[in-house]
C-alpha cells in the first residue's frame, strides 16, 4: 500500500510539473564564427517567450521603487546601451560609483560582470540594480505582487516560465540581454570581405593589433594585449580581462576587483570593456573620467600612473629602442593616435543602435519578430 502511495505521488508530481512548465518556442539564429563559442545556461534556454518578457521588463519603469527608472534609463539603445554620463543616476539621485557599461554581445562571456566583477552570470546580475537603493530601489516582494497583478505580465510569465517569480525575472532579463548581438559594424563587414578599410583605418587596425617591437621595426598601439575580446562582451574565463590600466597611483588606487576577491593583487583592476560601438559610449573608464577617445589615447600615450598592480603589458610597451625608466608612454605620434581612433570608429554598428528588436516595446512602432 505504501509502495502504491509513493508511486502515485510520483506520478502526480510529474503531472503537476508538466502542467507548470510552459511549452516554449526555441529561438533559431546564426552568429559569427569568429566571435567564438557561447554557452547558454541549460536551465534558461533562449526562447521567443522569455526574450519578449525580458525586453518588456528591461524597458518598464515598474521595476523601480518610484516607477520612474527602468534598466533602459542607464542603458539607452542609441548609446549602445550606455547613458552618456560619467556616473549613472538612479532613483536616489545620487551619482553611482561607476560609469554605465555597454550591453553588447554578452552572449559571449563574460563570466564576471560589472566593472569589479561582482556578478558571475547575467541571471545573478539582473536583480542587483533593481534592489540597489541608489539605482532602482525596488522591494522585490512588492515587485512580485505588482507584476502578478498585471494581466499582461501574468500571461507573459505564464508563457515563458510558468509563473511570476524572481527567478523568472532574472532569467528573462538575462535572455533579452543575450540577444543584444552586434555584428554589422564596418569592421565586421571588413572581416567578411565586404569592404576595405580606409588607409587611416587600416593603419589604426595594424597599430591596434600590434604589441610594439622595435627589433623588427613594428610600431604598436598595444591595445590588443588587453582588448583581445574587443568584438564581444569580454573574456569568459574567470579573472582574465581584469586589468589595472594606470589610471591612478597607489595612493589613490580604487579597490576594483579586490572588492570582490579581497586580494591586494587585484587592487585597481577593472573589467576590460567591449570596444564595440566605443565611439558612442563616452565618457570612458569605470568612472567616466575621460570625455573623448582623444583623451583616452592621451592617457595611454604619456598619462599612465605607476602603481603596484599596473599591467606589465603596459609597462613594457613604449615603441622606443631604449626602454625609458622615467616615463610610461606608447610614444605614438599624433597621426598614429588619429589612426587608432579612426579604427575604433569602424566598430560602430548603426544597425545595432537602431534595431527594432532591441527597442522599447512600449513605444516601438511595431514589435519585431
Amino acid at each position, binding site marked *: 500500500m505504501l509502495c502504491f502511495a509513493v508511486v502515485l505521488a510520483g506520478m502526480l508530481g510529474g503531472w503537476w510539473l508538466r502542467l507548470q512548465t510552459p511549452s516554449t518556442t*526555441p*529561438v*533559431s*539564429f*546564426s*552568429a*559569427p*564564427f*569568429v*566571435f*567564438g*563559442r*557561447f*554557452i*547558454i545556461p541549460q536551465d534558461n534556454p*533562449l526562447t521567443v517567450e522569455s526574450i519578449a518578457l525580458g525586453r518588456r521588463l528591461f524597458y518598464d519603469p515598474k521595476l523601480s521603487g518610484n516607477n520612474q527608472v527602468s534598466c533602459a534609463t542607464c542603458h539607452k539603445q542609441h548609446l549602445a546601451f550606455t547613458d552618456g554620463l560619467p556616473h549613472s543616476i538612479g532613483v536616489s539621485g545620487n551619482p553611482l560609483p561607476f560609469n554605465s557599461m555597454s550591453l553588447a554581445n554578452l*552572449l559571449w562571456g563574460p563570466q564576471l560582470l560589472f566593472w569589479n566583477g561582482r556578478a558571475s552570470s547575467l541571471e545573478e546580475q539582473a536583480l542587483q540594480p533593481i534592489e540597489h537603493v541608489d539605482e532602482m530601489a525596488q522591494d522585490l516582494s512588492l515587485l512580485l505582487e505588482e507584476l502578478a497583478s498585471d494581466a499582461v505580465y501574468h500571461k507573459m510569465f505564464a508563457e515563458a516560465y510558468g509563473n511570476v517569480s524572481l527567478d523568472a525575472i532574472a532569467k528573462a532579463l538575462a535572455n533579452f540581454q543575450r540577444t543584444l548581438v552586434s555584428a554589422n559594424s564596418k569592421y565586421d563587414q*571588413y*572581416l*567578411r*570581405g*565586404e*569592404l*576595405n578599410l580606409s588607409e587611416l583605418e587600416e593603419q589604426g587596425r595594424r597599430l591596434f593589433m600590434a604589441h610594439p617591437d622595435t*627589433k*623588427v621595426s613594428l610600431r604598436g598601439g598595444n591595445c590588443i594585449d588587453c582588448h583581445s575580446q574587443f568584438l564581444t562582451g569580454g573574456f*569568459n*574565463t*574567470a579573472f582574465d580581462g581584469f586589468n589595472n590600466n594606470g589610471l591612478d597611483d597607489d595612493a589613490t588606487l580604487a579597490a576594483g576587483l579586490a572588492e570582490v576577491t579581497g586580494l591586494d593583487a587585484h587592487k585597481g583592476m577593472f573589467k576590460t570593456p567591449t570596444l564595440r560601438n566605443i565611439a558612442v559610449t563616452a565618457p570612458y573608464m569605470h568612472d567616466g573620467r575621460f570625455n573623448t577617445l582623444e583623451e583616452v589615447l592621451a592617457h595611454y600615450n604619456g598619462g599612465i600612473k605607476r602603481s603596484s598592480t599596473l599591467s606589465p603589458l603596459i609597462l613594457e610597451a613604449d615603441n622606443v629602442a631604449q626602454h625609458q625608466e622615467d616615463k610610461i608612454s606608447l610614444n605614438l605620434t599624433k597621426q598614429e593616435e588619429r589612426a587608432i581612433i579612426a579604427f575604433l570608429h569602424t566598430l560602430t554598428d548603426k544597425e545595432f543602435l537602431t534595431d527594432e528588436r532591441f527597442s522599447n516595446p512600449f513605444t516601438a512602432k511595431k514589435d519585431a519578430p
Partner: protein
Amino acid sequence: MTSKSIKAMVASVTVGMLFILIGCSKVTQTTETVTTQTKSPSNSEETQGIVLLSGLPTLGTKDSIAILEMDPESPQFGDILYEYELPKYDAPLHHLYYSPNGRLYATGLGTQCSLAEVLLSRDAQGAPSINDVTCLDTQGQSVGEDIMWHTVNGKPHMFVTFMGGTGLDQVDAGSVGVFDPQSNELIKIIEARKSMVGEGQPYIMYPHGISAFGDRMVVTSSVHPNLTDGVGNAITVIDLNTLEPIENIVTEDAKPVGYPSSPVEVLFVRPSIVEGVEPAVLVNTMFGFETWKIPYNESDKSFGTPVKLYDGASAGTGVPLEFYGNQNELFISHGLPGVVKRYSLTDLPELVSSGADIQAEAGAHHMIFYKTASGKDVIAIQNNLLNLGNAADEDPTDVDFIAKLNHHSLTVHDLATGERLGEINIKERYNKGIDNIEALFGSGFVHHH
C-alpha cells in the same frame, strides 16, 4: 590520374624507398624537449580539428568537411561533431587555410573547384557550422595547392599556387594566382611556362609550396598534376614589385629513386619567424628525400648556392612534405616511414635537432598543435598523402604508391615525450579518406609559409 605510367613511376618510388628503408640506420636520438604543463584551456573548441574528408565510392561515402574532437582525454575523441557534405567535384578539396582575418579557404585538386571559401558560422547553440562553400573564379587555373597572404608595398594580397596552371593539357603547366584578399577577385595570373619563355629564362612549373619575405616570393616546381608529364627540380623566385619570375634555383642531388627531386614545400626563414635570423629558404624535395637551404642576402636581394641540410636517402626517410612551427620548434613531416622530425627554432636556418622523431604512420603529412583538457601539449599528425585515383580502380585510396603513403589516420602524440596518446583511423571508422587537418582556430604562426 591512374594510368599505367603513373603506377610504374610510383611503384619505382616505392621500391626505391623500401631499399632505402631496409638499409637505414637508427634515427638520431637527442635530448627530449620538456614542456611545462599549464592549466587546461577554457575553450573546449581549442581541441577540435577541422578536416577535409574524401568519400570512397566503393564504400558509399561522400566528400565532406568535418569537425573532429581531437583530445585523447575526451570521451568524444575521434567523434565527428559536425559534418558538411560537399558537392561532387572532379577531384577532392585538398587543403584548408585560415586567412589573417579568420576567413577559411580551401584549395582543390581538380578543375571544378580549385579554390573555395568556406563560410563558417555558429548555430543557436553556439556550435560551429558551415553555411556554404563558395568556389572562387580562378579564371581557368586548376589544381590549387598552397595559399599565402602577404603584403606587397603596403597592400595585402592572397597568393595561390596552381599546379595545373591555366591548362592541365600543358606539359609545363603552372601558375600563381594573385587575388584581392577582401573580394576574392583575381588580380593577376603569374604564368611563365618553359615553352613560353626563352631558353634559360626563369619559369614557373607545377608550383606547389610558397613562401615570401619582403618583396621576394619563392614557389617550388614539384610535379605535373597528372603525375606523368613531368617532374620539377627547382624553385622559382618572384619579384613582388613586378609580379614576375626572376630566377630559378635547382635543388637536386642524388636522385635516390631516379626522378627529378620534385621540390614540394618551402619556407622562407625570416626575422618574423626567428628574431635576428639570417634569412634563408628551406626546401623539401619530395622525390629527392632532402631538405635544402638557400641563403638569402637581404641587402642585395641575392640568393646563394643551395646547401643540402638533410639527406633522407641516407637517414632512412622519404617524401619529406610539410614545414610547421610552434613557439620553439620547427617540424618537418616525412611520409616514409611516417615520422615528424623536430628542430630548434632559434637555430634556423640550420636544422639542429630538438628531440627524437615523432613516430607517426606512413604518409605523415599535415599537423596541428593544441593542449589537452589536462593541459598537455600535443601534436596531431595526419598520416595520409593523397586521396586520388578513381572509381574504376575500385578503391581510390588503395591504388598506386599512394596507397603505401595512406594510413588514413590521425595520430596524437605528447609533444614532450613523443608518446602516442591516441589514433583515429578515418577509413576504418568513417569509410572515408582524410585529405587535410587544420585546428579549428588555426595551427600556429609559421604554418607552412
